[in-house]
């Protein structure tokens, strides 16, 4: 058996693996965007369990506008705008009126769940969904340079042309957002202040910087990222909006955020892990690992179980931003 044969065998074996990993990347993208969204908000001391609702609203409005105008970019803008409106409500409740951030998040999730169906039914009369998006209304897959030429190169060919190439632009954007978030949060003055406002807002206030403005900025960034995440769901991952299409992704992103202990690079790995779990659950019903049958329901529940384990502090302790969840009251 020559070396060429070994490569062929490897190639054949690698095919399903590459497919699984490519699916992982696609499924990890919305998680990653939402996770980074939560990262900005929570680092600034504003807890956000409304990621799910913001994504859902963005998913609907992006699909709706894309369907009506035929332009996916207008759809993306509409999705971001919808998400920003909900962010504004959250900011109003938790920053301006110093309300309970968790309750506000719950309200936003329900608001999105109800409004999307209500408006969808009113606009399209298709039982709470948008029409299927056709070309132009969807983000198309992008072929990286030389993807077709390199396809036949053993081993590396499929990795490049199937795994890395052939995703939509939002996927690349999401992965670029990781170093960008890291840079903004840890290498810029704005990022330093944003993190400080989540740890010790009084100190930031003493330095003469507006706590309120910083927190609103963080909530707005969160809104933009959630908007992209939602638009990705409806206009790239799938072709149109269906009722409750986020299906708990906002909460998985929240779980990933805790899993990553509020750090951008770790968020990437956490989202890839949870994306892999989703991809595997989607692909295989029950997985047979050395004679033990793992039911698909366990795969579904695993992100949540892992998060509880992390939260319990058995595998390293997840320490959230110190001032998280507490409205800031200026001293008089």
């Amino acid at each position: 058996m020559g070396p060429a044969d070994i490569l062929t065998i490897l190639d054949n074996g690698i095919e399903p693996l590459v497919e699984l990993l490519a699916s992982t990347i696609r499924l990890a993208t919305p998680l990653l965007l939402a996770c980074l969204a939560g990262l900005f908000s929570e680092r600034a001391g504003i807890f956000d369990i409304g990621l799910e609702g913001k994504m859902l609203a963005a998913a609907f409005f992006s699909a709706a506008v894309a369907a009506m105008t035929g332009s996916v970019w207008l759809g993306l803008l509409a999705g971001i705008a919808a998400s920003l409106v909900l962010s504004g409500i959250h900011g109003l409740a938790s920053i301006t009126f110093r309300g309970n951030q968790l309750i506000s998040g719950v309200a936003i999730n329900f608001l999105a769940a109800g409004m999307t169906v209500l408006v969808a039914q009113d606009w399209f009369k298709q039982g709470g969904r948008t029409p299927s998006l056709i070309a132009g209304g969807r983000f198309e897959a992008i072929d990286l340079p030389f993807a077709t030429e390199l396809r036949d190169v053993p081993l590396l060919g499929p990795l490049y042309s199937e795994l890395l190439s052939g995703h939509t632009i939002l996927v690349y954007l999401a992965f670029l957002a990781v170093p960008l978030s890291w840079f903004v949060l840890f290498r810029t003055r704005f990022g330093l202040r944003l993190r400080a406002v989540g740890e010790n807002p009084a100190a930031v206030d003493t330095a003469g910087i507006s706590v309120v403005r910083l927190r609103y900025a963080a909530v707005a960034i969160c809104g933009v990222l959630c908007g992209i995440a939602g638009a990705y769901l409806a206009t790239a991952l799938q072709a149109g909006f269906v009722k409750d299409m986020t299906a708990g992704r906002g909460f998985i992103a929240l779980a990933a955020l805790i899993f990553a202990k509020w750090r951008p690079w770790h968020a990437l790995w956490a989202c890839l892990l949870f994306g892999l779990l989703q991809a595997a659950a989607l692909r295989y019903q029950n997985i047979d690992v050395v004679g033990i049958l793992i039911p698909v329901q366990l795969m579904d529940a695993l992100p949540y179980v892992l998060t509880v384990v992390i939260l319990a502090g058995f595998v390293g302790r997840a320490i959230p931003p110190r001032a998280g969840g507490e409205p800031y009251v200026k001293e008089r």
Partner: protein
Amino acid sequence: MDRMPKWADVLLIPLISLTLAALLSALVILAIGEDPLAAVTMMVKGSLGSTYGWGYTLYYATNFMFTGLAVAVAFHARLFNIGGEGQAVLGGLGVAIVALSVPWPHWSLALAAALVAAALFGAGWALIPAYLQARRGSHVVITTIMFNFIAASLLNYILVNIMRPTGQMEPATAKFPKATHLPTLHDLLAPLGIPFSKAAPVNITLLIAVAACILVWVLLWRTRAGYEIRAYGHSEPGALYAGISPFRITMLAMLLSGGLAGMMAVNNVMGEAERLVLNAVEGAGFIGIAVALMGRSHPFGVFLAAILFGFLYQGGAELALWTNIPRELIVVIQALVILFTGALDNMVRMPLERLFRRRAGGGARGGAGGAGSSGSGGAESTAPKPHTRTTPIPGAPADEPAAGPTAADSPAASDPATPDGRRHPPV
């Protein structure tokens, strides 16, 4: 005192919040091209216009009383149990196991056993989040959210792989035996000569839910444990100083909360479906949040709010049946209620407090410092006490004066149990 009168806190603020939510809902109905007045008329007729409508309204209200009480009890200990949904799912599992595994001679015995099982299973599902909060400071909101999803997966697995009768496609248990059939309100009222719709699912569990409201009131305001729960909710340092164990109170409040949420399953699983299906809870666990917020965490308030939401649910179903307004309108109303009575509580409260202060200020103004100090005092009373991990939950500590501004003044670092100032790390 710079606080506003009690009636304003208990009645006026919820009423204003509710009015705001209702107005916005009316705008939403207008925006989708329907007539709000006609919609309300249809809702009232559909849910209160016949004993059939009442039967459904009260059936839903029964669910919401249990889940509302569950959230309210936890609120009193300043814990936010968002996991009522998962706890009710597990409660349903307990009910199904009890109903299917024992040949019950009479429904009353089955009911008693099912109540115990539902409460135990619900409390059991709250046990791990409660313990993690009490001992390891893992935020109970996040763990209970995670447990909701885990519960859904667990039930899915159990229904598909274990409890589904062979040959049945649908993931559901077998039909419960006839002997476990609970008497409906029709059966209960017939001997009294009162006619009531036979088709409506409201059943004897309604009476148990009302009893639960009364018992929770007795527990919270007439027992030592209830006093400790409320004291802990008002001020953790104060409770510690009084020798109240935070661990014990957190566990007690969460287990009670989980148990109450679980008991809901007696109504929907045993009383209505008479078998366990996927998604039997249908979001009632989350509606408990709205109900508890609207009822200001008081059992009587929860009772009223539950009936209101029962009306909304049945009315919403009627709307969906006869008009183009989908059922999701109720979800929007629910969101607005949570938003205005919960998160935006201060938006209504702050101007009102200012108004009352101005009216009271005319005669009883003490000195020159009065205006300034009462101003900052008002701000403090709405601000979080440093020992809490989150903002005060509206309603929970509202019925009694809070531990006072002194608690707000002491830095968290002085709390003996929290050297780092944070007993409960947030999300």
